[in-house]
């Protein structure tokens, strides 16, 4: 209790001091789970940060800390940022959820934005992208392109965001290829190139000729390239270094417009707690160029699906769909609601294995 009071008063003193002299500059902090050069998730968040700098020029100052472990250390980093006078802090990984809430309590005047989580507060917003829309496109291409009918999936942690991706990819692969089978490996890390490459190699050795990844580095791409005849998709970033093959398409997270809008809101004093969940339609999720390694008709179908999702005509989770245990989930034509999607903790029918609890 004493410690928090101390921190709060220190923050207030600092806030007063810096408020007096740096009224004109808005300070925006970013907490990253991996290095900015990971080529995937963190790389894209950092691109968003650079876009904020470019957009506002001298009116803004940004700071970031990379490779922050998800846990108590994250709290230390955020506290430090707040003490140094940050007005707005983006915490960019699911595991920062509780640390963000804890630190936000101590600094009521600092605005926090947590990516991919679901806990909000007066000064904590959450934002995420509907990656599962991109996964639907990937699933379609994967189902069409696999020859062994085995698709490998490298999961990071069994959280709703990752499970949604698996389900969405599976539903759409199965739709075009009823024989398709998913092999899922949980790496229990967001960023560990050696382990991600090992996971990809294991899946390839067990017959997979398409690899989908939900980890942050490009290592699985390198492993697939080494193996030769294996298809991959860029994750979070375009990963075009590995195009046109093995990487045949990608999901790109475009955070820049959101980061600019939220920074603007802090400057205007109009910042309020929001729960943003945007997809292809709003441009937060982009589909990277589908390379020529994909047959022309498949490419066309994939682009048509993307267009339908952008227009709001198609939802990747449209019934009839059953859960893995055979129970009904969505009736014919019914569309999944956001609440169920946000907390998704079950596989759809046909997927094998159990979700680690």
């Amino acid at each position: 209790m004493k410690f928090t009071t101390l921190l709060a008063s220190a923050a207030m003193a600092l806030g007063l001091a810096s408020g007096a002299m740096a009224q004109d500059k808005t300070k925006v902090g970013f907490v990253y789970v991996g290095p900015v050069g990971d080529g995937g998730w963190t790389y894209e968040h950092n691109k968003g940060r650079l876009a904020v700098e470019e957009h506002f020029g001298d009116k803004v100052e940004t700071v970031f800390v990379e490779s922050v472990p998800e846990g108590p250390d994250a709290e230390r980093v955020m506290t430090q940022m707040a003490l140094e006078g940050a007005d707005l802090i983006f915490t960019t990984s699911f595991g920062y959820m509780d640390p963000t809430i804890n630190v936000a309590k101590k600094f009521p005047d600092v605005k926090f934005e947590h990516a991919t989580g679901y806990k909000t507060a007066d000064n904590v917003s959450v934002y995420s992208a509907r990656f599962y829309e991109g996964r639907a496109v990937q699933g379609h291409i994967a189902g069409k392109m696999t020859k062994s009918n085995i698709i490998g999936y490298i999961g990071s942690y069994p959280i709703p965001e990752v499970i949604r991706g698996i389900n969405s990819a599976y539903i759409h692969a199965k739709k075009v290829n009823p024989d398709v089978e998913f092999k899922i490996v949980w790496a229990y890390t967001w960023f560990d190139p050696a382990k991600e490459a090992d996971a990809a190699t294991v899946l390839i050795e067990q017959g997979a000729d398409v690899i989908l990844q939900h980890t942050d580095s490009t290592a699985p791409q390198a492993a697939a390239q080494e193996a030769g005849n294996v298809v991959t998709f860029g994750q979070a970033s375009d990963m075009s270094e590995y195009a046109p093959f093995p990487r045949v398409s990608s999901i790109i997270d475009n955070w820049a417009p959101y980061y600019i809008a939220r920074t603007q809101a802090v400057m205007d004093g109009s910042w309020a707690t929001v729960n943003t969940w945007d997809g292809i339609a709003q441009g937060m999720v982009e589909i990277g160029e589908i390379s020529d390694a994909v047959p022309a008709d498949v490419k066309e179908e994939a682009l048509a699906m993307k267009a339908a999702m952008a227009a709001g005509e198609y939802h990747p989770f449209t019934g009839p769909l059953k859960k893995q245990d055979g129970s009904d989930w969505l009736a014919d034509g019914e569309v999944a609601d956001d609440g169920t999607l946000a907390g998704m903790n079950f596989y759809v029918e046909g997927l094998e294995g159990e979700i680690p609890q």
Partner: protein
Amino acid sequence: MDLGEINPVLLVASLMVAATPLLLAAIGELVVEKAGVLNLGVEGMMIVGAISGFAISVETGSPWLGFVAAAIGGAVLSLLFVLLTQVALANQVASGLALTLFGLGFSALLGQSYVGIKPPSMGDIHIPVISDIPVIGPILFQHDPILYVGIALTAAVWATLKYTRVGLILRAVGENHDAAHALGYKVIKIRIMAILFGGACAGLGGAYISLIRVPQWTEGMTAGVGWIALALVVFASWKPWRALLGAYLFGGITVLQLNLQAAGVAIPVEYLAMSPYIITILVLVILSADKSSAPASLGRTFHASH
């Protein structure tokens, strides 16, 4: 679930690959600690080795030159540790941590222009006849050369420490540097050589990740292997063959658990994910029941005027 999908031959072959970076780094650190120096900068030296090796092999097209550069890169970084701890007599723990932080940042700087490039492949050794023996051939005789270097290095370090005069002197320096000094051995000089050797080995281990195991350059790609190597040296009771066993156990179970997951074995994934750490620690702790202890001068600063 279908265990038949796991090919045991490929499994053993890939576990050896997964274990090699760990083994190289651990053997280097083992020699350093045997000389009485605790260098916590293994992770930093590995990542610098990873980028030096990657950059040079991309520029020259030769993976061999890359590995040489990696060893030099690791050793040069450890020179910084030498300056701090052996010349300026700074605290070894703090200096080692600083070395890791510096190495991670410095390698990211060096690697800016190497993201997304494919390094030249080293290729596997293929010896006629014995490489073609079923089962044994693919497991033992179809690897990249550096994997054999790792095993040879383990044997060499073991034999040197146990049977040679150099090894005896090194151990004397590590056990009691004052006595070694009184006998006329150059404590500082010997320690410097050991630290440089450790740096070179860590560099090789790092380059093995960036050139063979992944192969690509990504910032921070060693992702903690250096710390595992440090722990491994302690759990292996400073014995080379146990370090090899530990590295193979760790690498092996890491690959095995991924295989079991992919095959859909009904063991909760959490247990599988933690199994490499637990089993390695367990086995090595049981082995260390023979009361082998740390070098007595480990981590202590030596000053000749004492």
